[in-house]
């Protein structure tokens, strides 16, 4: 099974994010890291590819920069990467991203597309579903468990009250939650990642027109909630909780 995995390079979430003054887009440094939420997708893709003697290709739309985040995913074991790096895609919305990634996948071919449920930096949470429509495939979303066999894929899909088992023939797209524990790259994996093939396209190469139907009008800091009192537990801190619960009339 040939598996296409969407991955995103994002500014290190441990650092404060900054927006450019003109368009209010996140400023992206040269060194970006692999979005943690993509690790589960890479993991499940590797497992399915191992079981079916398939391949894992990463697809990513972002400034390549130092390729740090992409190499992190290659080091886990993915075979190769396809990047769309194009200055004109700066600030692209979810739909443009979906069109670009779908066009690259169509060009390269796939049996199964794997994506996270949402990115850590933008979290619009609709990009994979847009891709599924463009690619004309079923979207098996919010998978906490995935099995593939004999031309089909079956998942446990999280629902508001539990989970459903959902199945579809491939080609299909799945989105995975972080419930699937990712592997750590090995030293060998890290070394091999340096020489794995990385192909780069522009939006024009893929024949995708860029349009945007939304503009950010204003940005304002949200007032932070003020903290209250801090009590160091000396064995009686529970009394402070009881007192507060009484005060707010919960007990």
């Amino acid at each position, binding site marked *: 099974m040939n598996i296409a995995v969407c991955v995103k390079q994002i500014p290190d979430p441990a650092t404060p994010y900054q927006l450019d003054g003109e368009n209010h887009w996140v400023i992206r440094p040269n060194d970006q890291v692999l979005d943690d939420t993509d690790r589960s997708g890479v993991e499940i893709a590797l497992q399915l590819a191992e079981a079916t003697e398939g391949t894992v290709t990463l697809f990513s739309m972002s400034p390549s920069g130092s390729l740090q985040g992409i190499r992190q995913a290659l080091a886990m074991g993915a075979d190769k990467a396809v990047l769309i790096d194009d200055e004109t895609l700066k600030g692209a919305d979810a739909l443009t991203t979906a069109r670009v990634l779908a066009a690259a996948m169509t060009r390269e071919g796939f049996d199964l597309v794997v994506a996270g*449920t949402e990115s850590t930096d933008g*979290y*619009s949470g609709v990009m994979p*579903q847009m891709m599924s429509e463009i690619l004309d495939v079923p979207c098996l979303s919010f998978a906490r468990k995935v099995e593939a066999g004999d031309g089909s894929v079956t998942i446990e899909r999280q629902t*508001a009250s539990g989970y459903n088992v959902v199945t579809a023939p491939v080609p299909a797209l799945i989105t995975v939650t972080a419930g699937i524990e990712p592997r750590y790259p090995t030293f060998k994996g890290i070394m091999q990642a340096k020489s794995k093939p990385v192909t780069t396209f522009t939006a024009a190469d893929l024949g995708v027109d860029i349009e945007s139907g939304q503009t*950010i009008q204003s940005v304002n800091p*949200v007032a932070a909630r003020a903290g209250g009192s801090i009590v160091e537990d000396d064995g009686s801190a*529970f009394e402070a909780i009881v007192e507060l*619960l009484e005060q707010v009339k919960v*007990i």
Partner: protein
Amino acid sequence: MSSGISTWVFAEELEGKPSDGTLELISKARTFGDVSVFYVGAGSDEAWNALGGHGATAVHHLDPGDTLPSGPAAHALAALVTDADVVLFGAGNTDRDVAGRVAAKLGRPVVSNALDVTVDGGIAVHSEILGGTLGITTAITAEKPALVVTRPKAFTAEPTGGSTPPIEVVGLPDAGRANAASVIERHVEASDGPSLEEASVIVSGGRGLGAADKFEMIHELARLLGGAAGSTRAVVDAGWVPYSYQVGQTGKTVKPSVYIACGISGAMQHIVGMKGSATIIAINKDPDAPIFALADLGIVGDVHNVVPQLIEALKARS
């Protein structure tokens, strides 16, 4: 009042009823003008009454049976909303699936995580980005309909006493390969006591509990306070509790009178789901845990000491 804006609300049936989120969206949408609901599920008179009773003026009903609804629902909805001004979706998983597919079908952007929508002088969406630290207003400049995915509890459900609207049955359309996906099993992972959305007290446990069986004390404390138990995503992913417990950006948004966070660091994705709580109490052994920045009362201590002591103290009172 009514600005003559026509709004559609996407609704997925939940446990035989429209979800609270659906009723919240209809209540908001009726302040714009007419509200049509696209309802996915088995449907019932009770459901139609609830939709009408909150202000729906028309209902289009698709029963997908065992077909995974998102593909066919998006196909049908995209054809119905071509003349609408706004289409509102909740934050549920199927809502997001359908919103994305409709957007790609119609070639329209989606604005996600909406906390408010205004329609006077063009459609604009207010939301918070970067973990709720910045509020932004986004103008939708694309041709209508404007597609908006909202945050849970962004609006309040208020009954109007309206009557049952006309129900139009929508047949399962052929949405191409998406129709080949089917639901073969349904599992409900029930919890007892009040639901997270309704509880006035929530006791939530995080990875700081250390082990799945330690979650029992979270349940016990919640029971003693007549509340509900919640959790972080970290412990849902670890399989300690079902997803229905998860509070946060990709889980539930809650606004109880009291929220007690036990062994929870306070990651921004968790905070966005609970920062609207009236009183926040946090127990964490790390004095630098970010959760303390928003706690009305922060206890720097070990949950394995503080929580059992609190439980004993509450038991002694009753």
